[in-house]
């Protein structure tokens, strides 16, 4: 092996390991079954990482990083690269000393240990979580030269925990109960108000992510999973749920996570992540580098309203559309992988994907979205995304009218 050679780019290696030669890794034993009790990716995959945008936030503890969606396949996001968003850093919590308190308009305020919570009936569901600021840097124009940054505030995992409705039955809701406040055990003591209807419907108090315990960055040892709703309400490091009769109007649901309209009025409690999609191959990070010919266009679609029903692809900036294949099973409120076979003639393209969900909602153009919402609402920018493909196969993030 060419030790010392740059990882992640083609090596001028000679052909020692290529046929007809026997590669060196066939001539000597590899690593043993005790070498990696908990494994990590190959040394050659060091480019598959979360990345942040330094200029975006004042600090790196109240900040965001992005899932490398251009490097991923299928619908499951591996835990190591699920995007992070936190407001006071990711706390290193001892699970034996972590508690969930549920109180307020309840008959029996209770405190649960992790061990208590794991005794309840459990459920597992595959769902996406998306930050509502995903794409928010692009309201005014194309800005990020990469799909990791334009769409990477999303991940999709199998979550396991106890239904919140089970815990609420345990404490006994009082008649006047209508909203909950969920609070995190981080240095921001993050809070969000959640309507009781949703809480009793499908919200899960989760302790596992893709089989193993939740990662520190994603809420260890306990977080809310609020299927299809904006990431921020999926409160991480969950320590407290208070039952009340009205929302709290806390900082994260007034100052932030509200959508300012051109008339100066802001929408509040816009919870659902409407249908969105993006082509992850090609993209600026993965140009069409083989010239004319066959390419499989690959991408992700998702909707907070349920299942993705259809994804269409356009190569001419939305004049004509062709329906892509969806990876099955298509799961409700989960990432959905689409694939489309394209025979490229080498001419420039304006490549787009357009998702539809089972509610009948169709992803809008950026023009249509701006016509209603203007340029300053930050959140919920789920418009059809355009990649300009140049004759040399380079891909650029552009916006079109």
């Amino acid at each position, binding site marked *: 092996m060419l030790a010392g050679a740059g990882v992640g780019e083609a090596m001028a290696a000679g052909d020692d390991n290529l046929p007809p030669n026997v590669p060196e890794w066939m001539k000597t034993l590899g690593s043993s079954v005790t070498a990696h009790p908990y494994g990590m990716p190959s040394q050659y995959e060091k480019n598959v*990482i979360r990345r*942040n*945008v330094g200029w975006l*936030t*004042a600090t790196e*503890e*109240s900040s965001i990083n992005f899932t490398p969606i251009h490097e991923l396949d299928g619908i499951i996001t591996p835990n190591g690269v699920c995007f992070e968003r936190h*407001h*006071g850093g990711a706390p290193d919590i001892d699970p034996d000393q972590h508690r969930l*308190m549920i*109180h307020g308009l309840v008959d029996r305020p*209770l*405190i*649960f240990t992790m061990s208590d919570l794991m005794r309840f009936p459990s459920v597992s569901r595959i769902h996406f979580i998306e930050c509502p600021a995903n794409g928010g840097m692009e309201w005014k124009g*194309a*800005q*990020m*030269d*990469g799909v*990791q940054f334009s769409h990477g505030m999303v991940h999709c995992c199998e979550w396991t925990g106890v239904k919140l409705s089970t815990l609420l039955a*345990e404490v006994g809701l009082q008649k006047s109960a209508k909203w909950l*406040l969920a609070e995190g055990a981080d240095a*921001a*003591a993050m*809070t969000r108000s959640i309507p009781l209807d949703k809480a009793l419907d499908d919200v899960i108090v989760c302790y596992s992510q893709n089989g193993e315990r939740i990662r520190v960055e994603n809420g260890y040892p306990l977080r809310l999973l609020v299927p299809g709703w904006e990431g921020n309400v999926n409160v991480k490091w969950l320590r407290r749920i*208070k039952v*009340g009769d009205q929302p*709290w*109007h*806390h*900082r994260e649901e*007034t*100052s932030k996570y509200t959508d*300012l309209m051109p008339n*100066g009025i*802001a929408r*509040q*409690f*816009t*919870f*659902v992540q409407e249908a969105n999609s993006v082509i992850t191959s090609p993209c*600026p*990070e993965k140009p069409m580098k083989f010239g004319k010919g066959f390419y499989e266009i690959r991408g992700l679609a998702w909707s907070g309203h349920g299942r993705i029903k259809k994804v269409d692809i356009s190569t001419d*900036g939305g*004049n*004509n*559309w062709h329906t892509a294949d969806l990876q099955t099973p298509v799961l409700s409120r989960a990432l959905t992988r689409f694939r489309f076979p394209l025979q490229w003639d080498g001419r420039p393209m*304006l490549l787009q994907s357009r998702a539809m969900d089972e509610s009948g*909602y*169709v992803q809008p*153009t950026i023009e*249509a979205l701006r*016509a209603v919402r203007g340029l*300053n609402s930050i959140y919920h920018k789920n418009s059809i995304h355009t990649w300009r493909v140049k004759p040399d196969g*380079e891909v*650029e993030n*552009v*916006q*079109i*009218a």
Partner: protein
Amino acid sequence: QTKPAAHKPFGFGTAATKEQIAGWNIDVRGPDGAGLPPGKGTVADGEQLFMDQCSACHGEFAEGAGRYPELIGGRGTLNSNDPRKTVESYWPYAPTLYDYIRRAMPFGAPQSLTDDQVYSIVAWLLNQANVWPEDKTLDAAGLRQVKMPNRDGFLAGDPRPDVKPDTCMTNCRKTPPKITSDLAARLGVTPTQKTAD
């Protein structure tokens, strides 16, 4: 013994005592100030505390420093092209300010201020925002009465979907596509794809 459990409490968890709840029950509700603790503070004390503990990030006039948030100013900008969303211009409820400072500030040392200190800082900030008189002591009752400038600036019902579905498949465009923004690749604001060590 194998019959599925009937619907009744499972009995897991421990009763939360009043004292246990009191220690963790830090939330203050915006509209009615429910949860505001006893105590009080003055604008003058608040100024001192803000200079010591907050101004490094938020500026001596709470105007913000570097990329840290500005807390004051911005009135009348919300319907402009360059809205400035501050406590003064944007926040609908004054008690939320108490709640947030107590739970999250100063950044890096949250829950380190006494309840009275938080009242003082809130008093100073509200005074800077021109909604609290300089010489009046602030307490729970006072805070509940403050009407923030943008009190009526929020729409609680979610009006979405707010765009019409367009499912056209063929010859959908009236005009050829026109590129309206294509600087991303040249702006130079995208981090390079360098690898972790």
